[in-house]
Structure formats: C-alpha cells, structure tokens
C-alpha cells in the first residue's frame, strides 16, 4: 500500500467524496499501526491549522459544560489524592463488594422492585429478597470460564486441578496421576504387562463445576474433553475385556482404537454408547431437553434397553429426556457440536433459551426472564469466542434485540422497549 493511496483516500474522506467501497478500504488501513504516522501527517496537512478558519460552532451550553468539567476535574483530582477513599455522597447502587454500599443499595433495589411489581411482575419480588442476602457482584466481575476441575480419588479424597499445576499429583494402584499442560493423565508404572488386567484398579471421578472445563487422558490413551458442569467416572486401569466410563453433562471423546476392548459410555438416562475407536460428543445435561450423541468419525452403537441404533459420521442421535426412543438426525453440523472444545460458542439457528443455558454454565450465573413467557422468540446464528467477558457478550447480544440486566449475580432478560 503506497503512501499516495492513503493520502488520496483520506483527502476523499475529508472532502466527503469517497464511495462506500473506498471508505471501507480507508478504514481497513487506518486501524493498522504501521500507517499511524502517515495518517497523522496527512490529517495535519488536510486540516491546515494555521490558515483554516472555524467552519463549525459548538453549542455554547455544551462548551461551558466541557470547560467546567475540565476545571473541576483537576480540583477534585487534588482532593482525591489527599483522600484515597473519597467520601460517598449518596451511593445509590453498589458497583463492587465494598460493604459500605450494601445497606442502601438494597433499599434502592427494593424501591425499584416495588415499582415494577405494580406492573405485575412477580419475579422482581423474589429478586429483591435475594438481593438482601447475596454478595453484590457487578457484571464486570463476571469473567468467562477457564480450565479447572476436581478429581475425586477412590478413597474419597478430592484434589483441585487448574491449568497451572504440573507434575505427578498422586498415585492410584499401579497408576501415576500426572498433570501437564492442563490435561490429566494416568500412567501405568508397574512392571507387569500394562495391557493386563490390573486387580488394583480403582474408581476415580473427574468433574467440572460451572465455569470450568478440563481435559483428561484415560489409561488407554483415549482423550476426553469435559465441558462445564460435567463429570466422568472411570477406573484407573481398564479391564482386559472392556473399557467402561460413566458421564454426566457434556463430554467429547477421542477413543483410542482397540478392537479387542470395546469402549462403553454410560449416560445418566441408562443409554449406553458402545464404540471401538472413534470420536464423538455427548451432550447429556440434565437441564437440556434433549440428550444428543454426535458422531465425528468411526462408528458407534447406542443402546437403550432392548433397542440399539448405530451411527455413521455426521449422524446425531437424539433422545427426549425421560424417553428411551432414539431419533437420528443426518448431516448435522459437527463443527457446531464440537465448538465448545475449541473455545467457541457456535450457534446455528439456536434458540435463545438454549444459548442462555450455555451462558449460565460457562459464566456460572443464573439466567432468568422477568416472567417465563417473555423469553425472546429469536433464533441466532454465528460464532463467538468463549473467552469474552460477560459484559461484552451481552453488549453484542443487545444488537440482536436480546436485552438483559445483571443484578445480584443473576442475569435477567427483559423485553425491548416498544
């Protein structure tokens, strides 16, 4: 990109002669740091400080406001330096956990609750009452989820895991438990044939709370991703006949191929998945209306009672909660299903309620509407990072007509103004 090109575009912008396409081109260039100096030079040249006259006039009222704010800011600045904690004139609503704010902010919350109750929304009263009890958390405190889990050993001992831990964290029978790069792994250290059945195999459970995810390599080399609010129970060494695990929540499996030892996944509703070597995702959250098993590669069999179905890649088995009947969807978007393990929220014609359940699990917050009937009837399509702070995410959703406010650790959706 030549200097003269930017110059031409900026001149065009200044003289308001740019086409929409040129304008886009200019804006794409402006935000690049390497053109900063060139842009500044051109602006300097264009605006012609010495000889140009004032073509526009500010509103005198606004000008005076600005002047006053400048002069008073520097005075207050001096006061603030003398007093590290300035006096609070009349805190209306708390914005942090400072205990000073708590009592009064409850009063105002109550006033607001009363106001809205007259409009007939019962929920606000509930909310007002809870406001008194809970710590006040501002929306800016709500960060996205991260790596972390709890490992429960066979003897009931619990170990907290995070992404920073490293090295051997324990031993179960013949297996050493190793944590590295945010993944938990089991290594058989006995001199015996590692494929042989280990009589000392013990049962462990790895679970994630809301707002945490984790990765695990099972003793057979199978890799497992645990989404938030999920768990997997497994032996520290598999038997020589089969590999069996129990899960809750959402789990992605990359099963190490082994035709001699089928891999079995037991879900909360008695459904089982049987595989040899393959990758698939199970979404079995209790608060999701549907239990979904999606196959990415290989082949799996789903068993429930007497019935069984087998899936080919791209198939998704769907069960209604409390119903053993299995339906099969073909050619589902597998990228969307696995998005969570790649650090993304992915939506394809996704219902707002479903998105809110995901947000609730990932940001560890409750989501409610002012009243149950008022969830926006919207379906969303798109992708965004799971790394964004809640405030940014909600700001983006606002553009789609999803309005929410964050009060007392809860996200409350409300309808847009008429």
């Amino acid at each position, binding site marked *: 990109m030549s200097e003269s090109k930017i110059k031409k575009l900026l001149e065009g912008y200044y003289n308001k002669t740019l086409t929409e396409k040129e304008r886009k081109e200019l804006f794409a260039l402006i935000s690049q740091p390497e053109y900063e100096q060139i842009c500044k030079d051109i602006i300097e040249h264009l605006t012609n400080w010495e000889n140009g006259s004032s073509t526009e006039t500010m509103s005198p009222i606004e000008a005076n406001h600005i002047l006053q704010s400048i002069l008073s800011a520097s005075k207050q600045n001096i006061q603030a330096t003398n007093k590290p904690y300035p006096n609070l004139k009349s805190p209306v609503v708390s914005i942090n956990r400072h205990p000073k704010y708590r009592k009064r902010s409850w009063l105002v919350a109550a006033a607001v609750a009363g106001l809205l109750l007259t409009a007939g929304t019962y929920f606000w009263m509930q909310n007002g009452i809870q406001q008194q009890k809970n710590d006040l958390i501002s929306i800016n405190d709500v960060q996205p989820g991260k790596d972390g889990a709890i490992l429960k050993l066979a003897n009931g001992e619990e170990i907290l895991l995070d992404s920073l831990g490293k090295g051997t964290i324990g031993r179960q029978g013949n297996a050493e438990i190793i944590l590295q790069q945010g993944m938990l792994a089991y290594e058989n250290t006995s001199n015996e044939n590692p494929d042989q059945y280990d009589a000392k195999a013990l049962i462990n459970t790895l679970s994630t709370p809301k707002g945490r995810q984790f990765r695990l390599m099972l003793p057979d080399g199978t890799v497992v991703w645990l989404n938030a609010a999920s768990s997997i129970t497994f032996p520290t060494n598999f038997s020589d006949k089969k590999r069996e695990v129990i899960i809750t929540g959402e789990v992605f499996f990359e099963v190490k191929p082994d035709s001699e030892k089928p891999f079995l996944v037991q879900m909360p509703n008695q459904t089982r998945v049987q595989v040899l070597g393959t990758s698939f995702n199970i979404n079995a959250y209790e608060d999701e209306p549907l239990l979904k098993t999606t196959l990415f590669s290989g082949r799996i069999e789903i068993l429930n009672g007497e019935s069984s179905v087998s899936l080919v890649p791209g198939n998704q088995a769907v069960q209604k909660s409390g119903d053993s009947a299995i339906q099969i969807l073909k050619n589902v978007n597998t990228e969307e299903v696995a998005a969570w393990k790649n650090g993304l929220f992915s939506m394809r014609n996704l219902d707002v309620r479903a998105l809110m359940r995901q947000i609730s699990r990932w940001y560890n917050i409750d989501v409610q509407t002012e009243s149950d009937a008022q969830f926006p009837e919207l379906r969303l399509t798109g992708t965004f990072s799971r*790394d964004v702070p809640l405030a940014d995410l909600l700001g983006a959703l606002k553009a789609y007509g999803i309005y929410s406010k964050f009060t007392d650790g809860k996200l409350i959706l409300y309808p847009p103004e008429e």
Partner: protein
Amino acid sequence: MELQGSEKEEQFAQIFHQYRDKVYSIALRMTESVELAEDIVQDVFLQLWLHSDKLSDLTHFKAYLFTTTRNHVYNALKKKAIRESTPEIITAPLSGNSFPADDVLLNKEYSTILNQAIAQLPEQQEKVYRLTQFEQLKRDEIARIMNISPETVKQHLAQARRNLRSFCISQLASEGKWGLITLYILLGKNIF
C-alpha cells in the same frame, strides 16, 4: 503561563473559548459526529490544561494544541474505523476485546479510577449515572424514582459523563499514564 489559582483558570477559559471552535470544526469534519467531536474538544483542552505549566510561550502552546488535536482526531478515526469495519458483531472479535492481554489489568485499574470518579460527582448526577449504568434503568424509570423530568435525567447523565471523562483522564494523567488514556479511548470504555 505562570499564573496562580483563579487567574490561571480565567486565562485558560479565554484560550478555550478562542480555540474551541477551531478544534471542534476539524474534529467534526473528520469524525462526522457531533458527539465524538465534542469529546475530542474535551480531551484536547483537558490535556492542555494538565500540561499548562510546561508551556512557556504562545508559539509552543499553539503547536502543542494542534498536535494534540491531530492525535485525538486520529485516535477517534481509528476507533470509528474499528467499529465500522467490524461487520457482524458476533462473528468478529467483540468490542473491547481487541487487546485481550491488557484487558485484565485495564479493567482493574479502570474500575478503581471510575469508582473514585463516580463518588466525586454531584449528588443528582451520581444517582442518575448509577441507575443508568449499573441498574440499567431507562430514562423514564429513573425520572419516576427521582421525581424529576426525563429531560433533567438526560441532562444530568450527559454532564455526569463529561465529568467522569475529565476526572478519569486527569487522574490517569496525574499518575503519568498517558498510554492507558489512549488505550481507554480506543477501547471505548463506557464513559469514554
């Protein structure tokens, strides 16, 4: 400009009124937005005021005022460019997320300063600001709670934002954090 107290303020007010429309004209032309242009006027003159002790004569002062204006115009343009060239909010990086590494530090520092700033506001402005920003109440609701007209709510809020902007910038400046100021303005933190 070696003046003290109110005399200094008077002199500054004079300069402000003499040059404000010039800065405003350039800013409006380059940003195409009255609101952004007014913000630039505020930022430019605030910076001038904070540096007034170091400016010895009129030549220096003019050059300084101009360079400051140019820089703020460029920053505003860059911010505008980032906003406009972000096609679909949801498929692109979300607002405020352009500098993820700095964000945690920024947010912490920012909220400390912002809290101080809010506490310095006149009572009515503070109330309106808190109800708007933290309770996310609408203008009509605030008017009812505070028993004032919606128009007054609007004015209080506008003046509260002006005051917060000035306070936060001068606070950061007094700590020598000019880099942070630029970053805040670019990120479009809610008061900037």
